[in-house]
């Protein structure tokens, strides 16, 4: 049995992190809290690395901050801190809710949102929440740093445009929900069988002065290989007034677009459809009423 890694580094600066990655030249890997990666590693699902570069000790990236009209979350910030943070609870409710259903407290105390995003699972709950907030990720590499929309980072299950052997996801940010805006998240689990999440969904809505939806983002997973931003539903509800009928139509629009397979011991396609049909309108309704409350 080979160890999953030989060296464990917890650099204090981004430059040190990038230097380490350069030094290991493809045989080093960045982790955040490592709560997914390490468990998968223990199950032998990842090839051994020469070094682990733990990004949670980088100075200045352990904070949640407000600047330039964004809420910014450093890559060292754990799910537990996000859940408790008053600004995120008030202005990114769907993110607080989605991070709140990840694992149990011990996992949330270690796992990070940045790790959740970079790990690119098809239904990472924190990721689904951040997607609905139109989150962006800052990626640092030897060439410099760049901001990319989170929705553009996914390549496939567990695969991201962020090269975890060369680059570090340093920060995440989103525009806080303001006046006339609200967001919500929900997840359905099925404890029988393989005990996997059935669907995780989030939405952010803004209402105009007439009470019509003038901005909407809806995200969900797993409905395919990567977390999905549900454009058809978003288009359908834009310009309309919130109503149960509208939100039911939004669910239909989603179901018209995705093909939900029966996944053995996880859920039947019928059940997965039913959960979207039930819960998408529910979270849209919750986001809308929060938006009304934020007038």
């Amino acid at each position, binding site marked *: *049995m*080979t*160890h*999953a*890694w*030989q*060296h*464990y580094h*917890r650099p204090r600066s981004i430059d040190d992190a990038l230097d380490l990655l350069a030094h290991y030249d493809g045989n080093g890997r960045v982790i955040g809290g*490592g*709560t997914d990666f*390490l*468990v998968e590693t*223990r*199950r032998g699902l990842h090839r051994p690395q020469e070094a*682990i570069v*733990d990004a*949670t000790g980088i100075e200045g990236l352990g904070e949640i901050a407000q600047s330039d009209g964004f809420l910014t979350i450093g890559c060292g910030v754990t799910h*537990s801190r996000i859940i408790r943070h008053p600004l995120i609870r008030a202005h990114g409710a769907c993110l607080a809710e989605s991070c709140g259903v990840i*694992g*149990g*407290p*011990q*996992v949330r*105390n*270690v796992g990070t949102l940045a790790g959740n995003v970079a790990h690119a699972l098809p239904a990472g709950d924190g990721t689904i929440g951040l997607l609905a907030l139109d989150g962006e990720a800052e990626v640092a590499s030897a060439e410099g740093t760049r901001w990319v929309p989170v929705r553009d980072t996914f390549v496939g299950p567990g695969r991201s445009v962020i090269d975890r052997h060369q680059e570090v996801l340093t920060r995440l940010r989103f525009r806080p929900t303001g006046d006339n805006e609200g967001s919500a998240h929900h997840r*359905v689990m*099925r*404890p*029988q*069988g*393989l*005990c996997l999440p059935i669907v995780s969904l989030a939405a952010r809505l803004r209402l105009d002065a007439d009470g019509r939806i003038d901005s909407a983002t809806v995200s969900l997973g797993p409905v395919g290989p990567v977390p999905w931003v549900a454009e058809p539903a978003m288009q359908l509800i834009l310009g309309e007034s919130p109503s149960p009928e509208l939100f039911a139509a939004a669910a239909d629009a989603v179901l018209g677009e995705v093909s939900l397979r029966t996944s053995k*011991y996880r*859920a*039947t396609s*019928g*059940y997965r459809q*039913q*959960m979207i049909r*039930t*819960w998408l309108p529910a979270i849209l309704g919750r986001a809308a009423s929060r938006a009304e409350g934020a007038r």
Partner: protein
Amino acid sequence: MSRLELTLNGRPVSVDVPETRYLSEVLREDLGMTGTKVGCNEAECGICTVLVDGTPVNSCVYPAFKAHGASIETVEGLSAKGELHALQRAFLEHGATQCGICTPGMLMTAKALLDEHAASGEPLTEDGIRVALKDTYCRCTGYQAIARAILQAAGQDVAPYLPATAAAAQAIGRPAPNPNALAKITGAARFTDDYVFPGMLYGCTLRAGIPHARIRSIDSSAARALDGVHAVLTHEDVPGRNLHGLVTVDWPVLCGDKVRYVGDAVAIVAADSAETAAHALDLIEVDYEELPVVADPVSALDDDAPRVHEDRSEGNLLKHIKVRKGDVDAGFENAEVVIDRTYRTPTTEHLFLEPECSIGIPAGYNPADFGGRLDVDAERGETARHVKTTVYVGSQIPYADRDQVAASLGKAAGDVRIVATLTGGGFGGKEDIAGQVHAALLAEACGRPVKIRYSRQESLQVHPKRHATVIRMRTGAKKDGTLTAVHATLYGDGGAYASLSEKVLTRATTHASGPYDVPNVRVDCYATYTNNVPSGAFRGFGVTQSCFAVESNMDLLADALGLDPVELRRRNALRVGASTATGQVLRESTGLLECIDRVDAEMRGGDFRWSWNEGPRRFAWGIAVGYKNTGLGGGAPDKATAIVEAWEDAGRGRMAEVRISSAEMGQGLPGVLAACAAEELGTAAENISVLLGDTDVCPDGGPTTASRQSFVSGNAVRYAAEDCARQLDVTPDKLANARFEYEAPATQPLGTGGDMHVAFSYSAQAALCELDLRTGEVLVRKVVAAHDVGRALNPLTLEGQVEGGIVMGIGMALTEHYIQEDGQPWTTVLARYKTPSIEHAPAISSHIVEDPVAAGPFGAKGVGELPSIPVAPAITGAIRRATGIHVRSLPVDQDELLRALGDSVGELELAWGDREPIPVIGDDA
């Protein structure tokens, strides 16, 4: 190696360790702080929880160097300057620790919660506890005692929950913490993996990985050549019997010709480290010829089914078990209503939170030979000389371990010694041999101690499970509800080896007409071999399965007759003078009616409704009853021998030491035995020390199974203590000494009539369930339970058995399913097996009924298994009342349930893992 610096429990620690270490490994292996336990290495069970800078983390997947410079708190640091922490005191008082393996993690998780609330000043609530403890599993307590203990530690006025019981005598009937609880809450309690012997090697087992195949060849030369490997053993290297087994000796120690399930052992390796041993396994080449797989217990009996054991003339039929009473045809002719349904129950996993671990010590071992310290006075442990081949193990049957190890070593039983360590949960899953024989073989081959520690994942695929069953149940009754006949047919999946299948399924069969007075009974049970993981003992021992079918039919019968379901049960309940399915006429201790009355009265208290709606949720009650034999029964001699030494102490009164080989796995046996001895000696239970399970000094208490230890070992201790008391009365200045072999009243084999069992315990349970009509999710909100236990010997640990058993039953009803397909487990990791967490634990209102049995110690009979038995049908009864859907397959699958709701289907027979409908069992079966 790199330098790791920590502040550990307030003390700076600096240690050179590889950077590959996890925090749990540094604590346990590098620093020898074994208070922190490891249950899964998947961040699922939470028992490894420690605090890093005040925050609870799973140390099993927390890289040690991530903690560099941090402050770590473990259970060892919880008590300051010899003073127990408020949490520890509360855990003791509330009986919140049972087997103790989860206790360190539970305490640390709770400590962080208390600290957080102390800092914020916000009052702690039960909801807050549920959130914080969500992913810290306890398989023993049912969580209620833990939650209450935490509230008390937070300064709230919460007393231990104790149902009313008969007035306490000297020691009997007095609620008291288990004597080993103190060690469990401080981290001092030692389980097998906590022992490290000088010179010790680590063993690993090569598993088949495929369910059915012929072995063409095994080449272990590369593994033998690997640096650090001390021995590689295959079937050719077993000096004695290459088989083990508790009833039927059919389970290969190391497979030579054939493998019959994925967990079959093909080779074992001992090496300097567990890593090297695991690496060596990869180098062993086994050439297999794969064979067709027997996948389920019904098709196993097809004429053309492949043979699991080719030499058996009965093919895959392990045993056909029959119960005959009266004239079942006449009974049905006489019936005015007949309910006929087929049910299915799943394979389930014990999930004792301590995976199996054995340490073999070679005969003649002297720790000084390996740089260790020899203490000539030490009787056992790392500093002791070991004359005999010895195995340290936390198992349920030390003497059976001894005999099986000896047989495979080719030694006399007296030349092998088993030292029982604490058992981190058993529930029936630690009765069969796990690593005991392998560890002994490797130890003798290497001349060194060898530890074999199963990972959670290995444990999942190796040890016997609860039998999956298919049960056709036909129940006939008169219009007034009087039962006239029961005809049941059961198929039980025994898996690849016999284990305890014959006994378990006999119990399923004999209890298949329920705790009812039924004049005409016919039951046929077919125990079959398949290529699935073997099935064996599991709390409830087959009765859990048949009770589900019996009680589900009773609910349908009540509906068909327009009778109240409680009234129907009351009308037919076993009582003195009635006879069981096997013809045993009950002469005493039949407290079922009182159990029913107590539960019914509480359930119907207030403004009772069977069901109601609240928004998208529907609530409903269900009720079920069950019973369970105490002791082995069936004509098996049921014995236990105890040694008691007692003396007068000028200050403390009479003192005693009790010795008996019976297993403590958290159920509280030492406390019960201490109370039995104390009662006879007229002293306090605290004055009794109990040594369990060193086969060289403790006589045989028999297997810890069949809810028998309080009865059998309790009596042995009681009578030995009584003898000592007599001696002390005469010569108070001399050490009294008595050895008593107790043999339970004789029983008769099945089919001969007469008393098949020495006693039965009874239960009634009502479950209030909440069904989410949007998702199909079911939660149990409240359970009202009554248990007739004869006499409550220790009400505190008794209540622990009740609550833990109920929550275990909830798991079987709603979430637990060990999935196998064509002999391949899907449940390969703990993340794929959902056992109840504190979120699933209901409020439990417990009533204790004490209808004494004359032969029991102070009137007591068994209780260990009973609370798990009626839970599932009570829950499915509630679901039926809430939805009209009669669930015939467990666990209740929310996906299927929601679909049935949408389709207005009246009966649900699919469970996700069993995509095929329940097989049809023909009339002639």
